[in-house]
């Protein structure tokens, strides 16, 4: 056992490190493995379940009668069939836009107001919990979006066009990053989203806890930040382009097992 002055510590460490370290993808895989146990999304799931069952809003009602597509109150299995067409709103809706409908009709919240609220503020925080809870109730299930309704088919076609739509100062489209398999930005793998990228990858890995911000991101927030980095203008919360992309990616991911809520860089 030897005593080392502080200044010497760095040098020895560097020498050892150079000899032993796993660089690149192996190192990242090791890092991710260490974080698998203890995903803070658990905290959001618990908060979401409480919000789902709690009487809230101007009508002092819970969300327990919310119809997520499998009938009022059915949460299990609903997430892996979204986005889908809803007869009451005559619209194809994703999880977040459907939650807004329920928050408005059942609880009396102003859906348009929540859609305008910045992420991470006010009722948007409630939605972070709710998407974690609802998606967790389909954990392990396989994506199977309905495509029987003409509007669902239409949204798929439009989503495909949106996916390949190149514009902005960088000439980027979704396909710039997600059109080919095996690609990375820096060390970040980019799932190919034009076909099924596999279980728990791409569409099947959102919502997710973001380590960078310590927040739960649903698909709406994921797409919003994609468009930010695509250098596009701002997509409205629950806007048709976001729903259409959800349908396109979700239908392409048919059969993929959902691991949501996942944990992401």
């Amino acid at each position, binding site marked *: 056992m030897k005593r080392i002055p502080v200044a010497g510590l760095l040098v020895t460490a560097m020498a050892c490190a150079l000899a032993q370290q796993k660089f690149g993808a192996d190192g990242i895989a090791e890092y991710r493995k260490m974080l698998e146990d*203890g995903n*803070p999304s658990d905290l959001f799931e*618990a908060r979401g379940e409480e919000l789902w069952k709690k009487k809230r809003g101007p009508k002092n009602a819970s969300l327990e009668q919310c119809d997520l597509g499998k009938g009022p109150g059915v949460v299990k299995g609903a997430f892996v069939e979204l986005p889908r067409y809803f007869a009451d709103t005559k619209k194809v809706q994703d999880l977040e836009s459907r939650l807004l409908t329920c928050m408005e009709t059942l609880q009396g919240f102003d859906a348009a107001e929540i859609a305008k609220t910045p992420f991470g503020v006010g009722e948007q925080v409630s939605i972070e919990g709710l998407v974690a809870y609802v998606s967790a109730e389909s954990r392990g299930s396989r994506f199977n979006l309905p495509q029987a309704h003409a509007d669902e088919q239409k949204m798929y076609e439009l989503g495909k066009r949106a996916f390949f739509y190149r514009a902005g100062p960088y000439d980027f489209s979704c396909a710039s990053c997600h059109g080919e398999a095996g690609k990375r930005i820096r060390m970040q793998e980019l799932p190919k989203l034009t076909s099924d990228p596999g279980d728990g990858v791409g569409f099947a890995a959102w919502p997710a806890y973001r380590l960078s911000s*310590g927040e739960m991101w649903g698909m709406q927030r994921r797409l919003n930040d994609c468009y930010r980095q695509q250098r596009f203008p701002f997509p409205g919360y629950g806007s048709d382009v976001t729903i259409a992309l959800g349908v396109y990616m979700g239908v392409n991911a048919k059969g993929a097992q959902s691991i949501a809520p996942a944990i992401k860089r």
Partner: protein
Amino acid sequence: MADPMRIRAQAADGKATVRVLMSHEMETGQRKDAAGNTIPAWHIQQVSARWNGATVMNAQWGPAVAKNPYLQFAVKGAKAGDKISITWLDNRGDNRTDEAVVS
């Protein structure tokens, strides 16, 4: 009030492994807001664990512990049915105690 913790405690090989997730911002005091003002430090400073009511561990944390903190440790001799409770206190005077039964 702060959200509940998620505590899992599993007995095996004569000990119980305890895994805890806490809901907390763990603001460092090093960051600035959009207006350029320093966001004050706000973090858990003390964490303690009790096994069937008796304190078995005391920890102190700085703001370098990550947001929504995770903690794992093991209680020697704890078995299924025992109670593990965790308490945290932060520098704003907020605190939270939650309990789990060892499985």
